[in-house]
């Protein structure tokens, strides 16, 4: 009997030694298993132009942090999946990230439908989700805090469009848009802003695949608007602008910055698009975080989504550090401690942030997309907007406010 227990003891000791030796080389590098972070960006499909750069930004930050010793002495590992800009494929990819890779956080879901489909998996499995989708309904989901987004809501964007139209002296504002996740909320909030100033609004939803919009323009002009707001994307908006020009419309034209872009301005006759205003959520251009990001990924003017996902990864890594724990719940409970700690040191990258956290300093991160302060339900509380105008065939900055 004693013999038996002795063998068992020696066996245990042997096993322990074996396990110890196996763990030792890793110990020298960084303690414990790596912290896993997933990105779920569109690499193919409609969002395909955006996803690859987004992943690049996250990878660059993680490489930098690992070179500086990791987080909590652990390496950070990036697992990238493609959501194919489809909620069906997105859910499959998210399940793999959550169940197989056991990531602490998923970053960068782009299409609103993908985010809405993936969000329940995240909160049920206590995985943190940071997104760049804009649909209002997302933060209204019962996410228990496991979700934040850096894209301003449609409510905020609509309000800005309405107020800007009023500021241009418009009283009658017409909104034209294809059916998008934000068309209705955009119009409702423009209406609220315009009605508050005593004006009136009307809207028209059109099919974005049509080659001409004569009948639509007739309907627009019947309303006798002084301002027309375009809610569409580049191809349909350029056709709309042409037909509106043919109909000799003289009022104010306002569009999204992502639809009336350099490409559109170059592709239509100058007088068609002249004097059109563009409004877009502004990255914090000129801020230190923005400059760092530009240098890090070598892209001169990164799109808003890239600046946002850059902020996601910085915030998540710092939240893990301040919590001393890499679980999704720890990130959820601590993200606001690094994004908006009162009187915290102004930090613009994870490396400095991790140092400050190690020195027990409070941290307030100001990112490349903006100040990154979150409300209770996970929306950003403040965002700057960029107002531009086409002047003489060129896009000129009017103001950032």
């Amino acid at each position, binding site marked *: 009997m004693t013999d038996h227990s002795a063998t068992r003891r020696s066996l245990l000791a042997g096993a322990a030694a074996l396990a110890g030796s196996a763990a030792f080389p890793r110990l020298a590098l960084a303690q414990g298993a790596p912290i896993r972070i997933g*990105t779920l960006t569109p*690499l*193919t499909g409609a969002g395909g132009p955006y*996803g*690859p750069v987004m*992943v*690049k930004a996250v990878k660059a930050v993680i490489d930098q942090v690992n070179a500086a010793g990791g987080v909590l002495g652990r390496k950070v590992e990036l697992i*990238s*999946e*493609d959501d*194919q*800009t*489809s*909620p*069906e494929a997105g*859910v*499959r*990819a998210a*399940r*793999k990230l*959550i*169940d*197989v890779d056991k990531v602490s956080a998923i970053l960068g879901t782009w*299409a*609103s*439908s*993908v985010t*809405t*489909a993936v969000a*329940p998996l995240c909160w*049920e*499995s206590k995985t943190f989700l940071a997104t760049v989708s804009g*649909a209002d*309904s997302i933060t209204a*989901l019962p996410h228990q805090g496991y979700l934040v987004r850096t894209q301003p809501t449609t409510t905020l964007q609509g309000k800005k469009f309405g107020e800007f139209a009023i500021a241009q002296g418009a009283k009658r504002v017409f909104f034209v848009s294809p*059916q*998008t*996740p934000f068309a*209705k909320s955009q119009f409702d909030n423009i209406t609220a802003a315009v009605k508050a100033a005593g004006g009136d609004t009307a809207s028209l*939803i059109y099919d974005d695949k049509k080659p001409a919009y004569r009948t639509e323009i007739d309907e627009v002009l019947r309303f006798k608007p002084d301002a027309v707001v375009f809610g569409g994307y580049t191809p349909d908006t350029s056709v709309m602008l042409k037909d509106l020009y043919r109909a000799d419309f003289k009022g104010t034209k306002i569009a999204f910055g992502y639809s009336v872009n350099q490409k559109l301005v170059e592709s239509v006759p100058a007088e068609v698009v002249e004097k059109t205003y563009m409004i877009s959520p502004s990255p914090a251009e000129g801020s230190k975080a923005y400059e760092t990001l530009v240098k890090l990924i070598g892209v001169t003017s990164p799109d808003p989504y890239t600046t946002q996902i850059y902020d996601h990864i910085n915030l998540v890594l710092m939240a893990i550090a301040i919590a001393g724990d890499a679980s999704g719940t720890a990130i959820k409970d601590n993200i606001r401690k690094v994004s908006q700690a009162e009187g915290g040191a102004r930090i613009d990258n994870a490396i400095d942030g991790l140092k400050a956290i190690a020195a027990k300093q409070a941290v307030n991160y100001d990112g490349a997309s903006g100040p990154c302060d979150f409300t209770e339900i996970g929306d950003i509380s403040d965002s700057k907007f960029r107002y531009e105008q086409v002047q003489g065939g060129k896009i000129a900055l009017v103001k950032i406010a």
Partner: protein
Amino acid sequence: MLSYLIFTLTLCGIYALLALSLNLIWGGVGLVNLGLAGFFAVGAYASAIATGAGAPVVIGWGAALVVGAVVGLIVTFATLRLRDDYLAIVTLGFAEVIRLVALNERWLTNGSDGLPGIKAPLKAELGLQGFSLFYLGLVTLIVLLVWFLLRRLDLSAYGRAMKAIREDQQLAAFAGKPVLRFKLQAFAVSAAIAALSGALYAHFQSYISPDHFQPLITIYIFLAVTAGGVGRPSGAVFGAYLVVIFLEATRFATEWVPGLQPVQIAALREMMIGVALILVLHLRPQGIMPERIPKAPAPSAP
């Protein structure tokens, strides 16, 4: 890992139902239905809207079956005079119409925001893991049941008549088979199965939106039925499991390719799927489990 496997197998089952639906109409009466995603969507929305209005989940699934069958009948009536490629184009258009209706009729479908929070049956009672297992069991059971019924159908006189219509419509009519009635019935049953599959998907994911029902799903199912073997229910089911497992396996396979950017890996995955389709069509056009055509009985002595 375990929950991922359970999830994938559940999805396999849902795809298998779609494959069975396609196999019935394509392998049975020879009508090419490129509108599968549309029927899938009809079922998902029917059940989601019914249960959203307070009906129990079982009623929702029943509603999906009925609405699916009715829509199937409407589509067949609208396409009575069309065959082959022309029918395929119209059904493709039908799926797009369904998607556009779901996108624009906000009062009914909540537009592009989609319908979140669809009831997941017994989820509260069973817990997360329990629910996943229960749903896997349920879906698998339904697949087995539908497979069994369709196999019976294939072996029956009705099934033989269907295949006679597939081979030569005129000849079948000449032999006294009511071709139109067969087509209507087969299309309605096929549409109902696809709709049921959609309803199962909706309550599994608890969220649907017009973006869910892109034509890509139809392509996957065609790949499944082609790989498995057109005209044989076992082949369709096998093909569906194969396709979903292959789709998921490409995620892990690409991890072994060194030195690629994430975007290149994503492209590589799509290429692998395309290559798989070409290989199947090239090496085994009759599918892995080809249709078994029973021998004609020996002529009796005069």
